[in-house]
């Protein structure tokens, strides 16, 4: 009897194991190790509509669609679908000459008419793109001839080309990709682009298969296929990598710092950290409570030990930040004196401003008011939570009370719009959005940047300068304006840069030529290889 049951058990298990193996082969990398890469992603890639936002994933949009011009590694604008362009002397129109060898993945050719159709459909849906100046500033698109288009602007706008290079919403979809209604805000018929990859297989929430576009006009990818498996859970992704179901985990959105370090410590994988991609900042609200006081803002900056936070919360994966944008970002190489960690100075600043610490009291007071900071945060973000808990204990030492409010993401963002906070976590956007896009949020109503500057005496002048800089077509004038803007931001201490964010990846040792893109939302799969 015993023998029989153990035999049955082994038999059942082997059937199950056989079923498992059978299924695995379908999506496994090992079947063709030389030219297929399998990577994980957190979310489904969506319909991959080039003209809309979520659920369309940026990296997939970048794989399938091309812009007229692209953002080069050195921050210079490079030719892409357009070989050349010319700006009118008044800065109010741009004429683009298109490549004549661009073929969409359905075999159709890129034409001026198709480019116009793409831009028109985005401009028609301007309500959805009101955050993006480039859409608001386009007046109309003229077809000059089959390979020439002229985009007329309502007014000059210097970051026009930068914003054309964005992954969305101004990349080109083939005519056959447009839906019956003719407007892509209703979705697309098919994801037909001219990019280096073609979407050849897809199962929603499960996987997406991209195949090299053999007709790609630029340098073709080295890999033949990229399979993206949708794995929403970080632990599950790590196990999939260990089992060999995936070859690569790309991006800090997929692994928390501690998880990255855990994989690194095993010594079984190659790991890489990128250059700074954006800045983690704490933004003050200068219109609310104690942070209206400049001395309080300065004191908090001096009472923050960035290195300790980076070592213990971010596992050493990021660099200390003292300026809003990392040096090397456009217009950002300006000499500014850092607010370094100095508790004595911090205490002195608070004393000078009249925030006194009564004997026996834990927190400082002034005219009966306690020095309390209200800090809301997204309770789902463990890293933010830990940073704030660290700050809570650090600032307690100089007599500052921190009241933390952890909320669900949407509620947290709603609070950020009401301005009911003293300090809030915010990230800059990275290139090619920065510096102009982040700076511009300071002029928009109810935005974090707005609350940062609104309470300042120099608020009006600052926003006027921001308005001027994005309209300026003169490089020299632009540089001077940016310098003045950054100077004011720094002197008024309205942002507290914490660290420069980095991207990171973990891959098995068979992959080669791994790298990061300048644009943090792009995965440069084109260059990746399998040894």
């Amino acid at each position, binding site marked *: 009897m015993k023998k029989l049951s153990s035999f049955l058990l082994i038999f059942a298990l082997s059937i199950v*194991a056989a079923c498992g193996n059978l299924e695995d082969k379908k999506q496994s990398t090992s079947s063709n190790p030389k030219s297929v890469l399998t990577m994980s992603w957190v979310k489904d890639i969506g319909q991959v509509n080039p003209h809309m936002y979520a659920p369309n994933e940026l990296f997939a949009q970048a794989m399938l669609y091309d812009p007229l011009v692209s953002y080069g590694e050195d921050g210079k604008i490079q030719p892409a679908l357009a070989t050349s362009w010319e700006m009118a002397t008044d800065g109010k129109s741009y004429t683009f000459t298109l490549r004549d060898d661009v073929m969409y993945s359905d075999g159709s050719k890129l034409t001026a008419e198709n480019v116009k159709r793409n831009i028109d459909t985005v401009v028609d849906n301007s309500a959805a793109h009101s955050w993006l100046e480039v859409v608001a500033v386009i007046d109309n698109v003229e077809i000059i001839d089959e390979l020439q288009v002229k985009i007329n602007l309502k007014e000059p706008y210097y970051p026009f080309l930068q914003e054309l290079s964005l992954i969305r919403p101004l990349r080109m979809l083939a005519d056959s990709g447009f839906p019956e209604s003719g407007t892509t805000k209703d979705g697309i018929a098919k994801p037909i682009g001219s990019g280096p990859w073609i979407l050849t297989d897809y199962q929603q929430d499960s996987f997406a298969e991209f195949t090299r576009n053999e007709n790609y006009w630029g340098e073709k990818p080295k890999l033949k296929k990229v399979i993206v498996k949708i794995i929403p859970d970080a632990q599950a992704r790590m196990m999939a990598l260990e089992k060999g179901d995936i070859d690569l985990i790309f991006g800090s959105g997929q692994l928390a710092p501690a998880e990255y370090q855990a994989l690194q410590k095993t010594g079984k994988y190659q790991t890489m950290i990128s250059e700074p991609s954006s800045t983690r900042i704490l933004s003050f609200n200068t219109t609310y409570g104690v942070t209206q006081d400049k001395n309080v803002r300065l004191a908090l900056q001096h009472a923050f030990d960035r290195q300790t936070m980076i070592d213990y919360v971010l596992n050493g994966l990021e660099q200390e930040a003292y300026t809003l944008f990392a040096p090397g970002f456009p217009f950002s190489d300006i000499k500014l004196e850092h607010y370094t960690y100095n508790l004595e100075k911090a205490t002195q600043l608070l004393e000078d401003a009249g925030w006194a610490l009564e004997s026996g009291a834990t927190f400082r007071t002034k005219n009966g008011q306690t020095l309390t900071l209200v800090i809301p945060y997204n309770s789902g973000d463990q890293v933010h939570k830990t940073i704030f808990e660290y700050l809570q204990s650090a600032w307690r030492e100089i007599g500052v009370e921190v009241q933390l409010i952890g909320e669900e*993401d949407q509620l947290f963002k709603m609070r950020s719009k009401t301005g009911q906070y003293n300090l809030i976590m915010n990230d800059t956007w990275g290139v090619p959005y920065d510096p102009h896009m982040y700076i511009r949020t300071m002029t928009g109503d109810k935005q974090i940047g707005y609350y940062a500057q609104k309470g300042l005496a120099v608020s009006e002048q600052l926003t006027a300068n921001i308005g001027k800089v994005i309209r300026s077509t003169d490089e020299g004038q632009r540089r001077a304006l940016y310098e003045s803007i950054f100077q004011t931001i720094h002197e008024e201490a309205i942002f507290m840069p914490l660290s420069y964010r980095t991207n990171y990846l973990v891959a098995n040792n068979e992959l080669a030529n791994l790298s990061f893109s300048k644009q943090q939302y792009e995965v440069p799969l084109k260059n990746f290889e399998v040894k």
Partner: protein
Amino acid sequence: MGRFLAKRLGSMLLAFFGMTIIAFGLIRVIPVDPVEAYFTMNQIPISEEGLASMREEEGYNRPLLVQYSTWLVDAMTLDFGESFVSKKSVTAELLQRFHVTLTLAATAFIMIVTVSLTVGIWSATKRGGFIDWLSRSFIFTLASMPSFWLAFVFVYIVALKWGLLPLMGWGSFAHVILPAGTLALGFIPYYIRLIRSSMLEEVNKPHVVFARARGVKESVIIRRHVVKGILPQLVTSLAMTCGGLLGGAAIIEIVFTISGVGRFVVESMFARDYFVLQGFIVMIGGLYIVFNFVADLLCALVDPRVRIKGDGA
């Protein structure tokens, strides 16, 4: 039986109608609407005018009663509207994923019934024995472990270390075993305990004692009298569990990377996708109501007292 059935059907319809109001109302009470959620999710700072014009387009600023009645009328024909995020029909989106969750829940259900009946009956009949002792310690250990944690332990040992079952995904029967097993483990301790204690109660009832006095075989007593006696309670409880399994599959679906309804709804929750959430609540709520109805019918069939009481009142 006829009156019993009519009464039950009537209350079922009433519950259904009440549920649609709750489904509609509760979601609108949560702050942040789909339009705003969409832009904050994409980290896009959008102007109030932009939001207003999109709300107008989507019809979210019509009076609530108008919105509710339009939705209800459409819902009667199983048209639950369009997802704000994917722009696809909610019915299609839910159905496309529902069979996955249903397979998961049904497998878990079968596991719950077989394991808990076997162990429960065994430990009740051999009370104080080794199996009883083992099952009780097993219950305590299992009941005190969170199911997502158990899921990881299982995945780690069975799929990663032993390589017996696939790590994640969906497609063959092998893919169902681990997630369904994990899902079932959350319920099994409860049922073993329920079966064991109600059986021990049943064993001392007069009709069982009388049967034993008549010299009826022990196995027959257990089958015909004791197990039958605990059935109504068990069936009612299982009906509730059916709904719970469908609703509770979300975490399991995330951990095992299964594209089921649970995972979809969690994502829709963050996006405040009204129509998806309403459709889901009505679907799961509807199933709860139907399961309960079926359970009531089953109880009435097994236990004549239930249907006599129903008919007489």
